[in-house]
């Protein structure tokens, strides 16, 4: 077998540039998708008229269509109705919309842990619905749904590889582009798999630390 380490060393700067794009697009999408998740879950649970139904339709649309089709819809479809996003923002919008739908469901599951008694207690203390959500429901729901939110965020990070199809120069794009030029298949795919692994592990460690931090008040 000839595994050319020197080749990888030469391509390392290009891979790191790809990694930077992957991290940027994923981090931004993870944050935005959690915001959508919170908003959607709140609307769904509080049965906000119109918005609740809109979020339901949105979740079903995203969960029942392939991510690649959603990406092409954003990248090639939206310009025909006059909305042309850059490569980067096409990626952010698609990944955010995709993960956002799952986060709505994750957080809705967490909010189910907020019992009726808590709700009544909150109301009797004079908390308005929004304050109750912000001060009581959301902190509980986030603790409960953190593991599944992490799952979705990991999937988002890995699914950012799809963005190579629209030409965004993220990590997988760099690998496939170089393979098409130099045919160093095993070197490149091995390298990006290791990089993704490290990235996802870092994300998991971060989320676990956050989970431990959030659990602090409840530890005996």
């Amino acid at each position: 077998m000839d595994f050319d380490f020197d080749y990888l060393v030469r391509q390392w700067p290009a891979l790191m540039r790809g990694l930077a794009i992957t991290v940027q697009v994923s981090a931004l999408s993870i944050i935005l998708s959690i915001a959508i998740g919170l908003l959607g879950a709140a609307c769904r649970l509080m049965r906000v008229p119109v918005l609740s139904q809109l979020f339901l339709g949105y979740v079903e649309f995203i969960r029942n269509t392939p991510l690649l089709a959603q990406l092409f819809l954003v990248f090639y479809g939206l310009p025909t109705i006059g909305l042309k996003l850059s490569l980067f923002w096409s990626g952010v919008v698609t990944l955010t919309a995709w993960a956002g739908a799952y986060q709505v469901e994750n957080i809705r599951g967490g909010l189910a842990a907020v019992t009726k008694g808590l709700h009544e207690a909150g109301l009797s203390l004079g908390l308005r619905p929004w304050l109750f959500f912000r001060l009581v429901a959301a902190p509980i729901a986030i603790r409960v749904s953190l593991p599944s939110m992490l799952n979705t965020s990991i999937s988002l990070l890995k699914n950012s590889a799809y963005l190579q199809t629209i030409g965004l120069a993220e990590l997988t794009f760099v690998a496939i582009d170089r393979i098409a030029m130099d045919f160093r298949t095993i070197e490149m795919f091995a390298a990006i798999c290791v990089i993704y692994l490290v990235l996802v592990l870092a994300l998991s460690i971060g989320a676990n630390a956050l989970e431990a931090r959030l659990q602090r008040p409840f530890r005996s």
Partner: protein
Amino acid sequence: MLKPNARTIVLTLALLGTMTIATKDTAAQTQLPPVPAAIKSQGVLRAGVRCDQPPYGFQDQNGQFAGIEAEMARQIGAWVFGSPDKTDLTCVTAENRIPQLNAKKVDLLIATLGVTPERARVIDFSQPYRWGGSDLLVPQNSPIEKLDDVAGRTVIMLKGTTQAKWFEENMPKLDTLKLNTSSDALQSLKQGRGDAYTHDAATLIVIASKDPDLRIVGEQFAISDAAVGVRKNEPEWVAYINAALVKMKEDGLYRGWVEKWVPADIRQFYIDVFTKPRPAAR
């Protein structure tokens, strides 16, 4: 071992045949060397051709393989096995063609394959059978009139193509948008995500002739040779293919295939690339 003897006899016969023909009419006729036993024993010629590169290799309305390179594959099949139906064509893409060959899914590639040193590292090439240049496809009203006009603009290209390589080496500062398929590239050009789409001139000429909103810039660059790709260490097979390519040219087969698959208004371009010597360019 009987094999070398048999080959000697065939060669002698072939030589005798050449001499007989030469005495009959003065035109020199290439005789095909013996077919390698490994190919002959398969009973069928397995060739990789393109499915999305008209007029070289594509699929017609019925999903049948069509185009000049598909005809070449069938012709070689006919010479090897006595019938063009003994050719088993496989659809290959720019990315998977070399892996398909090296995984022994096909025995040869006639698949718009340009000769490059990187590819020569992993496969062997026959003699070139045509040359092909690159060009730029731009919107009709584009200010781009020559190759250098793309400086400071975005050029769309496909990953791993001759053009991607050429721009990387010759205009490394250029903004590029690299996509996976011709239809993605064309769509992106029409939506203004790039100022020009660079690909093989032969492909772009077909697109421009069908789409009144687009035109060819017309300055060819990165001219390369297209050749048949075969696996490494199959010298007998390469020799056979080389002889077959010479025979195609001698017999004037290319003109007929071009007339069969290319509309009259753009035919001359294709006749030139198969029959005329390669021009000088950047």
